[in-house]
């Protein structure tokens, strides 16, 4: 598979890359040190957790669902990893596996309720948002658990390669998910279900297992995000991921995913993640005040979508 072709093709239908470049240029001129290897590394290090969550979110949005619980589930999974590694003294790989399993379980519960009990995913995952956060507090006794440097190795650049294991797996995930979405039967089924569930059913596709699967995958990816968040922090923070769902949705939508389902791009969503990461970093570097940060963040979210829609209009009318 040719990654570059995949990227280029998508870049073409995602004008959003322009927003990203504009943003980078802006920060480049506002800060002396923005154009530097260390900035690049720092931004890259911040990507994995949001990328994992956003890929899951994009898949859920494509089948016309939503997953508000990702942030809480991520926090809960990080908590499980922390407790398993510290309080129970399990080996790290086993603790991580438990974190992943926890995410999968939360996602599967969401999926079961949404797919087989026909409940709106917004409400089910809002309920899960509350519950998973509660469980994160219960698990850790509301305490940040220091795991130690062993887990941090996941988030630190691998010697020789220069990027972290977390980042590599995030990129592998993006490519795989984009591939699955555009090149496999499964991906086409997801698009079909999100675009016109009735028509999909008429073609013999039972939407329920796919909805279940997508929400379970989103949960599992939030679980992995939890592991990487713990790696990133070196500790398990039961408050990790508050509000993350909105960032993930924003990244997905900025990248061209429709909230109405049936339309979405993983590469686009990843571009959205990059925009958010660059924004956070750039703002931290130029050190503006909290209110200004808020104002700029809000404006960038809107402008990115304005540019994208303007492009879409322009393209379709010409």
């Amino acid at each position: 598979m040719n990654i570059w072709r995949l990227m280029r093709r998508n870049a073409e239908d995602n004008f959003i890359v322009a927003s990203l470049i504009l943003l980078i240029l802006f920060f480049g001129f506002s800060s002396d040190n923005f154009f530097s290897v260390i900035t690049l590394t720092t931004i890259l290090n911040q990507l994995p957790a949001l990328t994992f969550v956003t890929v899951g979110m994009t898949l859920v949005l494509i089948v016309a669902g939503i997953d508000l619980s990702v942030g809480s589930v991520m926090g809960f999974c990080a908590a499980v990893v922390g407790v398993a590694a510290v309080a129970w003294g399990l080996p790290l790989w086993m603790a991580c596996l438990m974190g992943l399993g926890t995410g999968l379980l939360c996602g599967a519960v969401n999926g079961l309720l949404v797919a087989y009990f026909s409940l709106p995913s917004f409400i089910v995952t809002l309920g899960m948002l509350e519950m998973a956060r509660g469980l994160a507090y219960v698990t850790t006794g509301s305490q940040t658990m220091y795991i130690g440097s062993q887990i941090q190795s996941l988030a630190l650049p691998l010697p020789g390669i220069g990027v972290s294991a977390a980042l590599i797996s995030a990129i592998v995930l993006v490519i795989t998910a984009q591939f699955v979405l555009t090149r496999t039967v499964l991906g086409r089924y997801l698009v079909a279900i999100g675009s016109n569930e009735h028509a999909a059913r008429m073609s013999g596709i039972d939407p329920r297992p796919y909805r279940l699967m997508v929400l379970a995958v989103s949960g599992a990816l939030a679980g992995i995000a939890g592991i990487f968040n713990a790696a990133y922090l070196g500790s398990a923070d039961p408050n990790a991921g508050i509000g993350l769902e909105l960032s993930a949705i924003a990244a997905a939508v900025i990248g061209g995913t429709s909230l109405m389902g049936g339309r979405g791009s993983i590469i686009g969503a990843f571009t959205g993640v990059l925009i958010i990461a660059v924004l956070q970093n750039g703002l931290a570097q130029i050190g503006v005040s909290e209110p200004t940060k808020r104002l700029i963040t809000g404006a960038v979210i809107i402008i990115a979508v304005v540019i994208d829609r303007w492009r879409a209009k322009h393209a379709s009318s010409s």
Partner: protein
Amino acid sequence: MTGSARLTISNLNKAFAAPVLIGVNLKIARGEVHAIVGENGAGKSTLVNILAGNLRKDGGEISLDGNIYEPQGPRDAYTAGIACAAQELSSIETLSVAENIALRALPQKNFVIDRGALNANALKLMQRVGLQNIDPTSSTEALSLADRQLLEFAKAISFDCQLLILDEPTAALTAPQADHLHSIIADLAAAGKSIIYISHRLDDVLDVADNVSVLRDGELVVTTAAKQTSVSDLVEEMTGRNQITSTARRDYVSDAGVVLDVTCLTTNDLPHPIDLTFKSGEIVGLAGLAGAGRSELLSALFGLVPLTGGTVKRMNNGAAHVVLNAGQAVRNGIAYLGEDRQSMGLFPGQSLLTNMMVPGSADIRTLQCIDHKRERDAGTKLVEKLTIRCQNLTQDIRQLSGGNQQKALIARWLHRDSDILLLDEPTRGVDVGTKNAIYDLLISLRQKGKTIIMASSEIDELTTVCDRILVLSDRKLVRSFERNDFSEQDILTAAFSEFTASVENQSTSDSRVASPLR
């Protein structure tokens, strides 16, 4: 009519709030084309849906090739060898045309979709059904309704089925397209496939079918050989009444004033300037082949598509208003019935009454209270007038049969009492009885001085009700016929004229060369 029974239905029952299918018995042989006819709401689509696995039957037995057949979902129908083109077109807009066609069984190589095979297979099928001018990799969003109907058909014949069910497959098609489709049906039957064919075009039914069954109020009243029956017999069995024809008077009030004045109109899809005037008290028909631009013209008159040139003026008591958008059009007494009722008309999830009462009568204001009693009375009258079959006015519109939904949308504009009605395929999916009632209604509206401009793919429908017929060919207005020189042959020739011209003139600069079958 060869071979043993492929499908046997015995004593089939289905009820929603009221019984919809009552003790239906049906037998279909291998290689048989079996037509089912009946009034709107008779239960045809319900029967289809049960066979296709979309609905569960309440009682009775179905067997397929001698085996009990109890589908739990559409997938079971598919594995049992039943293919179905449903009445309500449902293409998946964010997938390509080829993907839509092959969605059931996307070809793959090493877990990856084999795009080459996918598009090649699709193209073959598309050529067969008359969609050869469409790029299989394009999205279905831009397809016209007729193309989508053909797509539905292509989807149904995309795999080697034993029983093919076609629920009103020609409703949105023009006569040449329908003929072509019928020839494919004949080929499939000759290859031993059984076909269930549902249509309100009874001539067609007698042409293609071996046997015809009539459903009336959920009961199967008779099954006869097509050769031994006639349209009037079928109508009588469907309705329980004698032949119904249009009975209204038709004097042409020729000196009436102009109500709509179109000058030099062009749009992106109508490149050749169009000049037209419409008078009050006339019915004008728009004839043409698929893609000729009839729908485009009607929506331009209503202000739905941006004009690239010219104006549409609404003349009212000496004053002229330029129609720029749909809101203005409606406020100026213009009504529009789109060709695709699902996307352009219905408010799903809302009651039948609400669907008939938006946008409401002409005197209604946005900040006004609704007089519920008055609306209910008006709704009841409309339901009677158009014989809309429903449980009550508060029933969800989605629960009505296709033809009854169409009637509800016509009722909407009757309630509005607009002066100019732009109707795109107004009788699509409507049964013969009601069709004639609608013709009468249109003629009586004309008597009251209303102007009706209707596009239709059925030329005899146009010659029945219209005072004037305009023919479009390849997005160009080519001829106008007055009532006294109507001739189906001439109209058809005119409709083909531009297409034959462009075929003869191979060096046309227009890349979008259309074949007559499109």
